[in-house]
């Protein structure tokens, strides 16, 4: 199968999923307590004003008509108006999206940089002290809540030692790397614990695999066995795992954005929730879901590039 038709098939599969995602978001927001119209109009609005808003929002229509409106509007890129920001939800999100995406990618890169080499060291020294030390440290890391790691880093490295800025995210690429370093490290410390654990067992499994034994029996240089035979195979499970962990990672960025006052989508989500800004909650939830499924798609494509068995199914 060519990769183009693979992509096409893979995209077709996401349609029913996304339909369900829309249903979940729609139902969730319709269950919000209080009348969104009152929230939008403000406390001093007259009944007539509220009624007008209700009609404008389509809230007087039957549920399935409302859903249809929601679906078609969303597909046209219209997510409604934010009550909190007094502008289009799409505009608000477009403003914050790059920050969260930057933070997420940054965290993924840092996680891999932390977890990758250590997983290798642990796997190659299985059962000996370097393995034990690495595993214990990461076991503890796994038990630390993201907000707590963030708080500690913020206080000591940023507030006390003034090595890093306390908030904001900078303007140039370099500034962003600098500003978002601590928030990303915070997320990375947690996710790298997950990745390390799994990558270590994946590497051990590959090291014991018969094809690696065969490669050794062929008398190949050690470097070649690790790089070509072990790493490539272990990479597949790492990529799968990274893809599946993206939800976790984004949950982490939501928290870290709050702790470090990074003006991304996560912090906005919390603001929207406290303000009961339902169009914004709706839009943000949808955007998060879109990001995750985009990552799932990329994971699948990457895997099919890496693993010839998947290409020819």
């Amino acid at each position, binding site marked *: 199968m060519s990769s183009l038709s693979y992509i096409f098939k893979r995209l077709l599969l996401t349609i029913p999923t996304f339909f369900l995602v829309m249903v979940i978001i729609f139902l969730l927001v319709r269950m919000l307590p209080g009348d969104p119209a009152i929230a939008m109009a403000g406390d001093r609005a007259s009944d007539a004003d509220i009624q007008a808003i209700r009609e404008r929002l389509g809230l007087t229509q039957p549920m399935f008509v409302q859903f249809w409106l929601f679906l078609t509007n969303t597909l046209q890129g219209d997510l409604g108006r934010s009550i909190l920001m007094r502008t289009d939800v799409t505009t608000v999100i477009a403003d914050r999206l790059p920050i969260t995406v930057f933070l997420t990618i940054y965290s993924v890169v840092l996680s891999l940089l932390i977890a990758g080499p250590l997983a290798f060291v642990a796997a190659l020294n299985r059962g000996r002290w370097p393995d034990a030390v690495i595993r214990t440290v990461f076991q503890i890391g796994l038990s630390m809540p993201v907000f707590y790691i963030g708080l500690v880093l913020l206080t000591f490295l940023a507030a006390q030692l003034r090595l890093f800025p306390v908030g904001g995210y900078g303007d140039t690429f370099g500034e962003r790397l600098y500003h978002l370093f601590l928030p990303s490290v915070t997320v990375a410390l947690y996710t790298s614990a997950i990745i390390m654990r799994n990558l270590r067992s994946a590497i051990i499994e590959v090291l014991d695999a018969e094809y690696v034994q065969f490669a050794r029996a062929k008398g*190949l240089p050690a470097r070649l066995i690790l790089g070509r035979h072990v790493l490539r*195979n272990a990479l597949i499970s790492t990529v799968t795992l990274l893809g599946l962990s993206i939800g976790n990672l984004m949950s982490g960025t939501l928290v870290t954005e709050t702790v470090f006052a990074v003006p991304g989508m996560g912090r906005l989500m919390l603001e929207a929730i406290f303000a009961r800004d339902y169009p914004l909650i709706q839009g943000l939830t949808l955007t998060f879901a879109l990001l995750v499924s985009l990552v799932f798609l990329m994971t699948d494509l990457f895997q099919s590039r*890496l693993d010839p068995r998947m290409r020819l199914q």
Partner: protein
Amino acid sequence: MEHNTPILEVDGLNTTFHRGEQPLPALRDVSFSVARGEVLGLVGESGSGKSVTLRSIIGLARRYGDVTGEVRWQGQNLIQMPDRALRQIQGREIAMIFQEPMTSLNPLLTVGLQLEETLRAHTDLSQSARRDRAIEMLDLVGIASAAQRLKDYPHQFSGGMRQRVMIAIALAANPKLLLADEPTTALDVTIQAQILDLILRLAQDMDMGVVLVTHDLGVVAQTCDTVAVMYAGRIVEQGSVRDVLKDPRHPYTVGLMRSVPENLPPRTPLYSVPGVPPSLDALPQGCTFAPRCAACVSACTQDRPSLSIATEGRQVACFNPITNSQGNAA
């Protein structure tokens, strides 16, 4: 024996794995030798240490446990050889093929690359010469349109074909000794004979020694010159195939032979050696086979018999060997 001087001499090979604090004696005092052009069969039930023997010789087992004793190869002891030096022997002088063709080839790499990397490690051939040699090898093991198939991945081959590919890879650098670990067990019966024939033909053409691990005495009878019978990590009997199969001395060998369903009238109940092999962490004090042995005498439960010469070219580890050539005593 009419063979010339041995190329491989295994002397007092011990391999011990560890589970937690507990040592597992996988091999004890294994000694044998193989000459050029000789095919040695290693037989025994699963768990008897046949595969561990091969993996200890070629240096795979030492990553998982302690290997001591001597494996002499052209005047050098492979057991003590550092990894780097050993790599000059692995694949170049001693090659190994595995039981499972499905899992023994790297699924992510083309067959061509897996063949070529061996050549690259062990020869000075140029890239195009390596390619030519790779095609030649695939051709030699009977894979049609070899040049095109270099680009294919292992999953695009059938089980039997994969085993042929593995043989091609193993033999690419012209080794002097082939260690074959049950190379036909995972294959269909109809293909087993073809693969065995292929191995033997190539061994003859290339004047290679072969150590063939199998649990099938029928295969030994057809293909091997000499045979060593293993039980619970030790060799219990060895000698030329003709002698051992015609006149087995060790009760275990007799039992193994009786469990081969050959020349039996229909509906004869199949024989099997009573009991199960002991586990490695609970070996009996005396002869490891004593609990299952019909010819067991009192010495057998106290001392361990060592492999000693019974007749010319024949070694048996038994206090009460069977002398009747029909083997009725078992």
